């Protein structure tokens, strides 16, 4: 646990300022008494409350994240702070007032109604002060969390972009295109169209959050078509999307990284190549998306499949659907299989 002592000092000064305001209000109601008395009482009681609550709030375990304890410990802390402020601060303030000559020796200002009034002021001021610091702390915490979340999202987008616009893939595709222009201009044009659609989808992916499953499959077809031209007979693929699932909304480019993993880690390194199958099915009212390949499988090493793509998908689905979405990855000697289950909204 790290405590920001400069922030604590600022809180103390704010507390003292608040105490001075209370003392001034009290003095305004009873101007025949000296101003010094409520000031001493208010500052002593307030400082003790501040010390107990503002320093004590970091001790319970539940305060580690937000800086404030949750539930009963939090309430007990505030109640304890107010009581301690009153019980310890009152006799201290009396002694101080006597020492400063604000009160004649032997007299006590705090009796009966006055004591109750003082307690009420302490209680209200304590609650108000605590609430003020709590809500400010909460706001700062929320802002920090939002900033972190935004930074994560930006990083994830950049990584996705970097992975998809990988220079090796880009230049190899361009080289194929250049070769095709000479021998088969019609097919070259087709390839260029796929590449344009692929690039557009990749660059637009950061804007829209969901699109119909049909569009997702179209983007997969663009990518797989590009790879089929490059790899020739080494790559075969099937895309299986039942018509009744075509319009189901899914997060943009959800399957793209999975298919790219299958190609990059499963099929490209395999001498004889293989096939990749993407399938959408409905199971118990949920959408099941499956990508399976006959590539290197578990021989692809630690970086295959379990890499960046899958982590990203897990995070995206967890933030959208929580526990209701599942992602699993298995690899054996025959190949790799990724299964994504998500609720149909």
């Amino acid at each position: 646990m790290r405590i920001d002592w400069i922030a604590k000092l600022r809180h103390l000064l704010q507390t003292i300022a608040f105490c001075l305001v209370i003392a001034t209000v009290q003095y305004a109601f009873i101007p025949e008494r000296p101003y010094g008395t409520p000031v001493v009482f208010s500052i002593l009681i307030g400082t003790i409350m501040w010390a107990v609550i503002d320093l004590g709030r970091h001790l319970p375990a539940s305060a580690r994240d937000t800086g404030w304890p949750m539930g009963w410990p939090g309430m007990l802390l505030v109640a304890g702070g107010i009581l301690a402020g009153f019980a310890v601060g009152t006799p201290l303030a009396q002694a101080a007032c006597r020492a400063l000559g604000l009160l004649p020796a032997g007299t006590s200002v705090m009796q009966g109604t006055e004591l109750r009034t003082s307690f009420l002021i302490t209680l209200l001021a304590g609650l108000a002060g605590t609430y003020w610091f709590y809500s400010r702390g909460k706001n700062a915490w929320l802002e920090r969390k939002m900033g972190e979340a935004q930074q994560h999202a930006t990083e994830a987008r950049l990584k996705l972009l970097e992975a998809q616009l990988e220079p090796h893939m880009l230049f190899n595709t361009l080289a194929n295109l250049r070769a095709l222009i000479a021998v088969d201009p019609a097919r070259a044009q087709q390839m260029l169209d796929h590449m344009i659609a692929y690039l557009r989808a990749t660059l637009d992916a950061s804007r829209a959050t969901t699109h119909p499953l049909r569009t997702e499959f179209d983007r997969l077809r663009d990518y797989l078509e590009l790879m089929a031209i490059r790899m020739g007979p080494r790559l075969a693929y099937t895309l299986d999307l039942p018509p009744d699932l075509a319009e189901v909304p899914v997060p943009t480019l959800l399957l793209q990284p999975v298919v790219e993993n299958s190609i990059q880690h499963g099929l490209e390194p395999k001498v004889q190549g293989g096939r990749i199958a993407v399938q959408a099915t409905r199971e118990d009212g949920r959408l099941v998306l499956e990508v399976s390949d006959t590539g290197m499988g578990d021989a692809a090493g630690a970086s295959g499949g379990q890499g960046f793509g899958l982590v990203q998908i897990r995070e995206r689905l967890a933030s959208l659907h929580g526990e209701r979405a599942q992602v699993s990855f298995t690899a054996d000697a025959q190949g790799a299989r990724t299964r994504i289950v998500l609720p149909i909204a």
Partner: protein
Amino acid sequence: MSPSAVIAEDEPLLAQALQAELARAWPELRIAESVPDGAAAVRSALQHRPDVLFFDIRMPGQGGLEAAAELADVWPQDAPFPALVFVTAYDQYAVQAFEAQAVDYVLKPVQPERLKKTVEKLRHAMAQRSAQPAALEATLGQLRHLLQAGPAAPQPLLKVIQASVGNSIRMVPVEEVVYFEAADKYVRVVCAGGEVLIRTPLKELLPQLDAQLFWQVHRGTVVRATAVEAVHRDEAGKLHLAMKGRKERLPVSRLYAHLFKAM
């Protein structure tokens, strides 16, 4: 006799395109064979003994660099080693290393102008070669550097090898290891008294070993230098290591033969 070449490129269209560009830039060059992977490239080069090799860096199975290294190891001593030209779409580290080692390379998509320059260089080198035999040694030195190139981050050195044996884990101090040998999906950790298997690939293991003590002597073999008893040369000029406490002999690749010299 007209010069000949072997092309190794896994993407069929790119292999065709390179062949077409070469036909324009170097009409008398004969393409002996065009193959789709590293292992086939080694076989083809041994069979055809071409003058030039065009090897793609990234191929399934064995990449261009590894294929060239293996070829250099098994190349017959009576024939001149072919001129090597690497082909790559984008490989920052490889290209830097090619420049540093003065190794020929072309970038994909192949630009006719650039290819013409490479062809001129190759022709010039071949004209000189008829005067003096090609130095396999020089190629070996280049390949050695290229294979070591890459962003290898310094790693803490391993003290013990932890291998799972049945339900337990065997701890083998590295100074007891005689040699490591890559075997399919595993690496054999061989000691004087026996051996264990680990799943960490040799490539990942190597940066974690003390380079003074552990020497790579073959693509799949790393020996502890202090466990080498003697180095023998056979009739074909190949080196073999006799290891302390072991009966088997370990072959040394030509690539690493320079490590063993009398002081």
